[in-house]
């Protein structure tokens, strides 16, 4: 138990990434406004990026940019390259979802997921 707590305290970045993920997930589940859900989705994605970059972090390591000095300690550049791709995807997903929201609003006149479900009628 003590070891578990110590491990958690040493890896506090992972804990906070988990907390942020839970906040985003809770937002997606509990709020019925679609724009709020999108903000929750963004928070969730950022938490995953935080987890990835925290994996790459080396204590006292410099940023992974070669400046020509010998024997320096660098952080791992691979996860940050992955995260860069992830950010590009995030922007695209956000823009696409926002355009979908505008279309939904012009069709149904509301952005509330429950109301849209009611307007569409019960499928059964």
């Amino acid at each position, binding site marked *: 138990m003590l070891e578990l707590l110590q491990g958690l305290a040493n890896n506090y*970045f992972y804990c*906070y990434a988990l907390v942020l993920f839970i906040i985003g997930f809770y937002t997606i589940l509990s709020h019925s406004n679609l724009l709020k859900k999108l*903000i929750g989705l963004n928070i969730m994605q950022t938490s995953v990026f935080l987890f990835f970059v925290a994996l790459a972090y080396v204590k006292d390591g410099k940023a992974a940019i070669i400046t020509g000095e010998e024997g320096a300690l660098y952080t791992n550049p691979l996860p940050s390259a992955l995260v860069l791709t992830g950010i590009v995807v995030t922007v695209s997903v956000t823009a696409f979802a926002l355009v979908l929201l505008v279309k939904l609003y012009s069709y149904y006149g509301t952005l509330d997921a429950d109301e849209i479900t009611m307007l569409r009628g019960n499928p059964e």
Partner: protein
Amino acid sequence: MIILDLLLLNILVLCAIAAIRVRDLLSAVIIFSAYSLLMAIIWLQLGSPDVAITEAAVGAGVTTMLFIATISKTRRYE
């Protein structure tokens, strides 16, 4: 160093909670842009300036403006 990290992460969690608790969608978007700012500082702390500069460019300029454009086309309050 560890104190700075913990402080930053706590502010980040506060920011996220504030962004999802506010009823006004415009305010939620404004606070979300602050979330992106703090995230950029954390990327710097974790030693990956590449991600930080991308987050800065995206979060300060593009994402917020897209959100505000959507709000201006739909409604502002939940």
